[in-house]
């Protein structure tokens, strides 16, 4: 039997790797992929809790998280395309239109 804490530790570690990717990368698409990684790590912990608590709530919540992640990816990538049409760069430190 695998203890529940192993799953939660795995989830925390993967989430932290996503955080590091989010904070360090310059490429906007890699930043989006880091966000997807963080969403996935949360899903792992939700499914693990659902299994160990013998409840279905976690799995239903994961379903909604996946639906929202799909919406987020579609909108985010559309924003990237819309931005790229005006300023052809996706380096986040050069995206400073709102800086004033």
């Amino acid at each position: 039997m695998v203890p529940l804490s192993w799953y939660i530790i795995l989830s925390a570690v993967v989430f932290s790797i996503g955080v590091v990717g989010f904070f360090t990368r310059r490429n906007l698409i890699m930043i989006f992929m880091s966000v997807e990684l963080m969403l996935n790590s949360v899903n792992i912990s939700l499914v693990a809790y659902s299994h160990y608590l013998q409840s279905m709530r976690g799995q239903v919540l994961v379903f909604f998280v996946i639906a929202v992640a799909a919406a987020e990816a579609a909108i985010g990538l559309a924003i990237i395309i819309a931005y790229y049409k005006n300023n052809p760069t996706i380096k986040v430190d050069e995206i400073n239109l709102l800086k004033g």
Partner: protein
Amino acid sequence: MTAPQWFFAYFAGMITLLSVVMITRRNPVHGVLWMLVLFVHIAGLYLFLNAEFLAAIQIIVYAGAILVLFLFVIMLLNLKKELTVRKVQQHWVIGAAVGAIFAALVVAVVAGITVLPPLGKYSIEAIRSEGGIMTIGKVMYTKYLLPFEIASLVLLVAIVGAVVLAKKRIG
């Protein structure tokens, strides 16, 4: 260690390793392809947790739809010159330190976590006698019907929003 623990150790090790490999790739296309392998491993972990519906959804939606969308966008943008510049931001050490401290704190807190009774009624035997997809379907279409419908609205807004944002401005 017992067989399930070895199984978990393989998947956990691969997931961690592939996450690190994914966020360190210079070329986003390589990152997406490593992420595909990562998602297959996460789906394997879901199967291990008796969530076969979510394992299928993970493959179909994440690997099949979201990653293909990422690949499409990467290929629409001309990123040839992005591959030659520095891949990390100026203050990346601070970001990495924040991530490491966050990981240490969370792992220290959750290291001894466990679940307390009462447990729910969806034990492995109950799910197995009815079938996993039927069980989750019953819950989703009765208790969580309203959130389910709202999820469809969210997706509708995403479709309309994506079209409006990315279309060519007329006039």
